[in-house]
Every structure is written in C-alpha cells, then in structure tokens.
C-alpha cells in the first residue's frame, strides 16, 4: 500500500505535495495519512476528496487515517467533510460529526456538491445573507460590493457545470488570518474532476494554438482572453467578472487544471502567475481569497 502523508497545513500550495505523491503512486491501494494535519482550508479539504476519488479509480478504495487533533476533526465535521469522505475513503480513526450550517459561526458554506444548476441556486440562497454580513462587517467592503459575492459564487460554481462536464464541490470559510496575510480573509474553494480547461476548449481552439496547445495555453485562453467552447459572445465572461471583482478587493484567484496553474496574484502573495509542468491532476481546482480592506 502506498502511503501519502498529508502535510500539517493543507491548502493550495501544500496540496501540490499530495498531487505529486499521488502521481508517483503507480496504482495499488493508497493510504492518506492525515494524522499530523493541523490546519486545512476549503481548497485543501476539497482537494483531499478529489485525491481520494482519483486514487480510487483503480478499484481500490483508499484509506484515510484521520487527523489526531480534536479541533481539526471538529472543524472537518462542521464542514461536513465526513459526509462526503465516507463515500470515497475507508476511514480509520474516529470522526466527530459537526452540525454544520448556521450553527457553526465560522463556516460560511460547508462542503456542497455541485451536480446541477439547482445546487448553484441552493448554495447562493444559503450563503448570500451571511456572506454580505461578513464582507461588510468583517472585511469592511462597501455593501453594494458585498452583494457581488453571491454572483461570484454562482459564476464559479457554474464553471463546473458548463465546462467540466462533471460534478464538483464548493466550500467557503472565513479566517482571522492566513500565513501570507495578517488580515481576516474569506476563502473559497471549488474543485471538480472533469475534463479540465484543455479538454473543454480543445475542440474549438486547439488547432490555432498548434504546438503551444496544452494546459497552460488553455488556462491562458480562458482566464485571460475569455475563450470558451461556445460560439456565443456572451459566454466566457463569468471568469472575467470574477477576476475583476477579486482584483477590486485586492484578493487572489487561481485555477489549476491538468499540469498548469494560472493566477491573479496580489502583492501580499508570491505565487507565480503561471506555473507549468506540474504533476497531472484531472479537472479544475479554483481557489479564491478575499482579504479584509487594509484601510478599514
């Protein structure tokens, strides 16, 4: 059995360690050892679920050794991680079920599957009022701008349904600070295991890119130039709107797909704007960080 050690901090950057280890697993059963896990964000949680699904594709159900830290277990419970993990993992250890939802004040949106458009409505319905409250009172955004959160969440979830041809998950959470920034932030994670941006755009755009065509070119085409596989000129603007909004708030948005990652990087983060030749991971993984206003 291949053992993959989950880092103590599991978020966008450290998830790469998991992907790298998974890429080297070469079949067989995988054990995800999360005993040392101390901190995890929505991207990390959803990434772990996605990694389990990938690891299980060979037919062997992966094993999850649960974190030892009680507060991590409690948090995972509140985010409803175990509800989804039990479908994908054989779990070793004792998960503590959280109640989730409104009872958990730090959870903005627990892990929510996006399988159809109804789920997008439900997610927006569930999170909108609380998101506006958090964005105005904790991040100090103007009310009229805070209203855009629901729109942004809707667009990023629709990206799963319209472009991945698969289902996915979304989750969002507030933090008092993150390692890169000593300010309150809202983090959004959106993960799917679909055909990825290269797969989505290949039919309509691969030919004119010639030898350049690949995951990075596809991400640039979609993220920077708003290209989609649809001929409708109104399509492909959702990501543009998200980038515009996140940029206005001094936040970060990044998309990993296949072997590449592209990002709008604010000055408080040192991620490269484009990374290539990463270990392959299917689908698309989107991370958004919205920081509190620094002048508030």
């Amino acid at each position, binding site marked *: 059995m291949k053992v993959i050690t989950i880092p103590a901090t599991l978020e966008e950057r450290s998830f790469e360690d998991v992907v790298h280890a998974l890429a080297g697993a070469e079949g067989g059963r995988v054990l995800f050892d999360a005993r040392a896990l101390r901190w995890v964000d929505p991207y990390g949680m959803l990434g772990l679920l996605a990694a389990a699904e990938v690891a299980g594709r060979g037919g062997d159900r992966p094993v999850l050794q649960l974190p030892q830290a009680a507060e991590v277990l409690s948090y995972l419970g509140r985010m409803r991680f175990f509800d989804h993990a039990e479908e994908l993992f054989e779990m070793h250890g004792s998960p503590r079920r959280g109640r989730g939802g409104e009872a958990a004040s730090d959870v903005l949106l627990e892990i929510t599957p996006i399988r159809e458009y109804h789920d997008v*409505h439900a997610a927006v319905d569930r999170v909108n009022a609380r998101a506006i409250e958090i964005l105005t009172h904790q991040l100090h955004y103007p009310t009229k701008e805070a209203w855009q959160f629901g*729109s942004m969440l809707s667009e990023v979830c629709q990206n799963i349904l319209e472009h991945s041809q698969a289902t996915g998950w979304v989750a969002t959470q507030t933090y008092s600070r993150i390692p890169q920034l000593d300010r309150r932030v809202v983090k959004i994670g959106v993960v799917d295991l679909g055909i990825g941006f290269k797969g989505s755009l290949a039919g309509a755009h691969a030919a004119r890119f010639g030898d350049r065509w690949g995951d990075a070119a596809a991400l640039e085409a979609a993220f920077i130039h708003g290209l989609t596989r649809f001929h409708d000129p109104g399509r492909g603007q*959702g990501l543009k709107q998200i980038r515009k909004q996140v940029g206005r708030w001094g936040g970060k948005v990044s998309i990993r797909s296949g072997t590449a990652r592209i990002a709008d990087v604010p000055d408080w983060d040192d991620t490269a704007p484009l990374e290539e030749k990463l270990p392959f991971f299917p689908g698309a993984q989107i991370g958004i960080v919205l920081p509190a206003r620094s002048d508030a």
Partner: protein
Amino acid sequence: MTDVSRDVVPLRFELSSFVNRSVASLYSHLVTRPTGQAVRLGIESQIGEIGALCVSILDFGQVAVLDYSCADETVAKLILRYQSDDRPADAYFVARGLAEHHLEAIEAVLERHDLALVAELETGPALLGKVDAEEHEVWRAVERLGRATRDDVAGYLGVETREVSRPLNSLVRRRVVLYREATGLHYALTPLVPDQ
C-alpha cells in the same frame, strides 16, 4: 399623455416572481443560465400573446442576486431578439427597480453585446450600456420632450437637424427610442409605461 400611448400595451414583468413561475422554485436570485433562459422564454411568450406594440417593464425590485450569466440570458438576449430585423413582436424594454449591485452585471452584458437599455433609476431615467456622448445627449433631449420630431430635438439642443440624425437613428435602431414613421415622431420610453 402621448398619442402613441393609445397603441402601446404596457407589460410589467416582476422578474423575481417570474423566476418562481419559470423554474418552479422559490428563488429571489436571478442566477445561472438556465434560469435566465427560462425567464426570457416566459417574457417572450407573454409578449407574443399580446401581439401588439408593447413597452415592457423589467422589474428587478425583488431580485437579490443577479449574476452575469443570468443577466446575459435574460437582458442581453431579450434585447438582441427584439432588436433584430426578424423580431417576433414590436417590443421595447425599460428596466426598473435596479439597485447598484445589479448594475454591474447589467452594464457588463450590455457592453459585451454593444446594447443599450433604458432604466428608471432612483436618480431618474438613465440610458445604460454602450452609448456615445452624442447619443446620450440626444436621448436626454427626447426624454425631456416626451415626443419630438427630428427638428424638435435639434431645436431643443440648438444644433442643425443633420447633427441629430445619426444619434437619433442609432437610438431608434437600438430600440431605446420609439419612432413612428407615419408621424415622424420619436417617443421617449419612460412616459409610455405606468408609474410604479
């Protein structure tokens, strides 16, 4: 009252309740493309039943969240449909109840498709979308006059008639000003719809 108002059927679409009818759910959020498509098809169906010249109010007053995709399907594609030469009916649109947080999505889709839309904002009538300065000026003149010939507009602005021709023609083509060839009159849309 304007003389054309006798011929105009005002239609009011309260979009939030329309979503409820269209997608059989209880959402006050206009989000996702399928929702936008359902709302648009519902509006088109009702306009088709009227079968006459109509000015339709798109009322966003009860809409909480409006995303880009839904605005594109509802607003942009509706205007595109009735702006085209093969439009199914003689319909015009006025947006009402727009809050600041709706404007971002509306303006983005109008800009994307090079469209314009008349709106009744808290500050008064406004012309949204991709409109140049001359078109704005001429549109404001027509709004102020209510109904006007080309000469009336030029006289109001203190310019030669030929100077208002291009912007007026553009406003008529984009269906933010109603034109009746028989009388040579141009009509502002907002006086043709009932007060809130």
